[in-house]
């Protein structure tokens, strides 16, 4: 039984902390989606030299609330050729694992739904269930665009799950625990894991962008190719549930990054007032969410073959090498993280330098091959 903070009775606190955690989960998911959509619009507007929403409420703050009300008020349409039960179940299969993820996120000292021994494994497990809902949505819509979107999503999510989990393994090697609370407590000061394991952070960030279907990996819903991918046949609040789930997923992966690399709830004043941890946790999480939006507004979308070859030939070897090097250095130099940090920073530099180099070589090779092919196909035209 944890000691109650604020002088509360431990028994009261045991019940109260569950209530607070569940309420926080629902609050963070539903309002977080509204806040994130508003932020997304404003930040994209800022980057693209526009003003964004300004007319509804002060600074356009009520715009997303108006949109949400409009979505809820819309008629619930289902085309007759869709597969009824699958069509209705798909948004829920996507939404519920995301909501369940919040059970193990440590918002503040003692403020966590369940401190599981295998918290991190639990989170990856729930993350892997999302793809099932997306594939079913694509299949049940009985629409070619939806089906291609669902299949792309399945390929992408299953591939990028590998570097995502491998990046997590590196952190687990250093912290020695799968429990989210223990991982947070292992980085109390300024020496957060980001300074020790930057390569794992970068590879996880890239894989997380792909896992949440964000730019530059939003191929399953690429509007210029697939209308709206697996979302094509959905409208009204069913579409809204997909969207809330997507933003919730972004919150979850940002929270995982906050916990694993940025020290979670730790910050000035948390020792005196544990509830302050929620503030630090939220600030760090939204810093990462803002980085996601920045990336979305900046980078163009990848092609599907580029996406796959980058994952299998770039990310997975990098994460595997990272695991081997980290494990060897941890065994060779027990008690100090300095060699691991130096090696990781060096490998990060190598990774960032090698990717453009390999791409340029590949592009040159492709161009050479195409020239040869064209000459062979029609020699007289050249």
């Amino acid at each position, binding site marked *: 039984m944890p000691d109650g903070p604020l002088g509360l009775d431990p028994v009261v606190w045991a019940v109260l902390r569950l209530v607070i955690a569940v309420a926080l989960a629902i609050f963070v998911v539903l309002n977080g989606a509204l806040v994130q959509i508003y932020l997304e619009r404003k930040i994209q507007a800022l980057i693209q030299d526009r003003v964004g929403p300004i007319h509804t409420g002060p600074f356009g703050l009520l715009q997303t609330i108006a949109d949400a009300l409009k979505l809820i008020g819309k008629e619930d349409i289902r085309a007759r050729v869709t597969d009824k039960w699958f069509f209705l179940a798909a948004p829920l299969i996507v939404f519920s694992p995301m909501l369940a993820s919040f059970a193990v996120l440590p918002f503040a000292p003692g403020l966590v739904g369940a401190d599981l021994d295998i918290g991190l494994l639990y989170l990856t497990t729930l993350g*892997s*269930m999302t793809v*099932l809902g997306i594939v*079913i949505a694509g299949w049940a819509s009985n629409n070619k665009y939806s089906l291609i979107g669902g299949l792309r999503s*399945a390929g992408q999510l299953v591939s990028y799950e590998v570097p995502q989990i491998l990046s997590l393994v590196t952190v687990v090697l250093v912290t020695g625990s799968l429990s989210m609370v223990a991982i947070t407590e292992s980085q109390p000061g300024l020496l957060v894991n980001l300074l020790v394991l930057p390569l794992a952070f970068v590879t996880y960030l890239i894989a997380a962008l792909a896992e949440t279907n964000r730019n530059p990996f939003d191929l399953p819903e690429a509007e210029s190719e697939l209308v709206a991918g697996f979302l094509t046949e959905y409208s009204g609040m069913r579409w809204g549930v997909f969207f809330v789930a997507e933003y919730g997923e972004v919150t979850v992966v940002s929270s995982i990054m906050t916990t694993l690399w940025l020290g979670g709830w730790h910050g000035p004043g948390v020792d005196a007032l544990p509830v302050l941890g929620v503030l630090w946790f939220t600030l760090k999480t939204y810093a990462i969410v803002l980085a996601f939006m920045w990336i979305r507004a900046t980078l163009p979308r990848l092609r599907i073959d580029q996406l796959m070859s980058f994952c299998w030939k770039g990310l997975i070897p990098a994460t595997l090498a990272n695991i081997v090097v980290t494990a060897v250095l941890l065994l060779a130099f027990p008690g100090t993280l300095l060699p691991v940090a130096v090696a990781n920073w060096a490998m990060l530099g190598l990774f960032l330098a090698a990717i453009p180099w390999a791409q340029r070589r590949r592009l040159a090779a492709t161009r050479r091959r195409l020239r040869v092919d064209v000459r062979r196909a029609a020699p007289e035209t050249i």
Partner: protein
Amino acid sequence: MDVVGLLIFGALAIGIVGAGLAVVFVDRITAAALLMAFTFLCNAGMFLLLGAETIAAFQVLIYVGAITVLILYGVMFTPQGDRPYALFFQKQTPLAGFLVAAVAAPVLALALTFRDPGIAREGGGDLQPLITSIFGDYAVPFELASVLLLAAMVGAIVLVKRDEEDAK
């Protein structure tokens, strides 16, 4: 096991057996795949009930998250309607019944003579024993299995690659 545990056990058992039967009898292959995922989920619940939460997590991660998606993927890429469904659901009931009975009878005998060996623990915590047995006591068999799987994967890639070149 307390009353709540028994109730959860009953619900999970009904889920496993019911969904398992439905997988066999439903004649829509996507529905069968989804019901199979549900069976896997109920199995994971059983592992949780036994205090083996790591096994449960891997059950969901691998079987629901990967295998079911792979099966759905296969179903979606398979052209439908150009062959009779009888090919999928053949009439070999007597032979199937005999084979099932041959497997089911020993399992049933084992299940009826099974006594709780006290593996189930209150509150779980199977991570430590699992790790020590995989990476300590059974490290060599584990690594052998990994190498075997790697070889199978490389072999599959080589087979697919050769088909591609033949097609050119």
